[in-house]
């Protein structure tokens, strides 16, 4: 039986009459590095806040490691490292003092000096007052705070926001290392390349509802295929106009197609123009994401 680090059933939250999330059924398996994707206002932060029991759902259930995120909230949060999306810290403190305070307020403390190692790896000067830190350095403080207790589950809201590329790389390494040490990682991000690089599963949320939850490789291979055909005889412009096929480019040598369905019929048609070469072009997660959100509101496989 699969063990879930996070499981939600029909999780819904309304702000008054405004939709936050609706009927979110989310399963994050233990050991996953799970990417949570969606544009601003889609419901990523709301979902994470409900999991942390910061806000309470209007309907549905949320459990973490099999325990109710509200009723067993204190026990559950002992095992979680959390980074809020809108991080706000105690400006008058130095980062060092903040870490000591934050560590002292945790339970299940294991390694009192771990925050120093994390801060060193991120290049964070912990002697400076937080108010003197740049937004990137404040983000580093939040990341160290989330990781410092070696939690079983990391819930991170856009962890690399405001960081330079080198530090982003380090954060990704920290995620992988935490995962290899047994932690489950659930994080939201707008940077799809990093999600693709580090996550094994992703969920895409749109207008408060989950529209896809899949393994990254399944998502990028199954949603559509991009195929480049070179032909002996140039096909007419409307040769591939049919359901489930979109022609994305054309030159003298051939055409590039996005194929959502009816691959067999397409191949039959293509063969009639004398195929000289065929190539399957990898589809990035970003392109999948845009397919969901861009053209036709994601309903573009028709």
């Amino acid at each position: 039986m699969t063990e879930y680090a996070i499981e939600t059933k029909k999780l819904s939250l309304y702000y008054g009459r405004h939709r936050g999330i609706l009927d979110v059924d989310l399963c994050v398996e233990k050991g996953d590095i799970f990417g949570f994707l969606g544009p601003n206002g889609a419901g990523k932060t709301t979902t994470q806040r409900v999991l942390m029991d910061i806000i309470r759902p209007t309907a549905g259930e949320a459990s973490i490691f099999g325990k109710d995120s509200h009723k067993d909230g204190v026990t559950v949060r002992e095992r979680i490292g959390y980074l809020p999306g809108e991080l706000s810290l105690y400006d008058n403190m130095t980062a060092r003092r903040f870490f000591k305070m934050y560590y002292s307020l945790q339970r299940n403390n294991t390694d009192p000096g771990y925050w120093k190692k994390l801060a060193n790896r991120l290049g964070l000067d912990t002697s400076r007052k937080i108010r003197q830190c740049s937004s990137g350095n404040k983000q580093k403080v939040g990341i160290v705070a989330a990781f410092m207790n070696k939690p079983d589950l990391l819930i991170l809201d856009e962890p690399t926001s405001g960081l330079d590329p080198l530090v982003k790389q380090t954060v990704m390494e920290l995620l992988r290392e935490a995962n290899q040490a047994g932690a489950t990682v659930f994080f939201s991000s707008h940077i799809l390349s990093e999600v693709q690089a580090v996550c094994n599963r992703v969920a895409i949320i749109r207008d408060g509802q989950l529209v896809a939850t899949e393994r990254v490789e399944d998502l990028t291979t199954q949603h559509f295929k991009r195929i480049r055909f070179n032909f002996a005889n140039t096909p007419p412009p409307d040769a591939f106009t049919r359901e489930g096929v979109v022609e994305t480019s054309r030159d003298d040598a051939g055409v590039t197609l996005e194929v959502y369905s009816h691959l067999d019929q397409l191949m039959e048609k293509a063969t009639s123009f004398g195929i000289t070469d065929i190539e399957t072009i990898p589809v990035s997660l970003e392109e999948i994401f845009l397919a969901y959100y861009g053209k036709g509101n994601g309903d573009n496989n028709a």
Partner: protein
Amino acid sequence: MLRLLLQELRFRITGIIGWGIGLSMFPVIYVGMYPSFAEEMAGFQDLLDMAIYQAMGITMGSFEGFIASTVTNLVPVILCIYAVINATGTLAGEEDDGRLELIVSLPIPRWQIVAVKAVALGISLLGILLIVASGAALTMEAITLPIETNVTSMDVFVSVLAAWPLAMAVGMISFFLGAFSPNRRIASVIATVVVLVSYLGSNLTGLIASLENIEHFFLFHYYEATAEALEVGQQTGNTAALLLIALVAFGLTLIFFQRRNITVGAWPWQRGVISR
């Protein structure tokens, strides 16, 4: 819980010292100046008998009346403003600026967060009053009074400290408003109105006989800033009433904070309604 309390006190220590020293200027200056204009003050008694001064609780014809009017009357009012600022800033303010999200995400029950912050507020108010009371008592020890009085420096010290239940009641009401209303601004406005209406209302009900039946609704009714109270202390029943009000407000804070959607900024009745 103790660690959280120590942390809360660390956050407040500068404010306690600053407000304590600032507020102690009142008794230090007023008590210290009294010998130089004691005779003149007696001459002003007719003027000070006017209703407007009585409404403000000011009767300066005697040393006891002078101390009651300047120290035990005004210090609690200003301390109540501190209580409003600090108490609304504690839950509502931290929620507004986002810091509370980090605290409630820790493995700490919400009731403990509320309890610790309430205790820290109580200690802050007591700390400020101790500084002010010490300032007043030391000043009184330092001056030579030109008149006979039964009031001792210890009486002044105790009478300043006696404002704690009133300040605590205001603080806890403000605390509750912070957990109840959408944001700090609204909580602060309501709490300030409560303090001002309580202060003026209490004094007015003492002057206008027809208003006597509503005097119990004003917090300041339960705190006597009079020459008599300076000598014999506050009535136990009044002090108990203020502490009970503080306790009820604290209980309501626990209930509403427990149910509160942090970061949302909504009234309790604005809960989500599913509209598919």
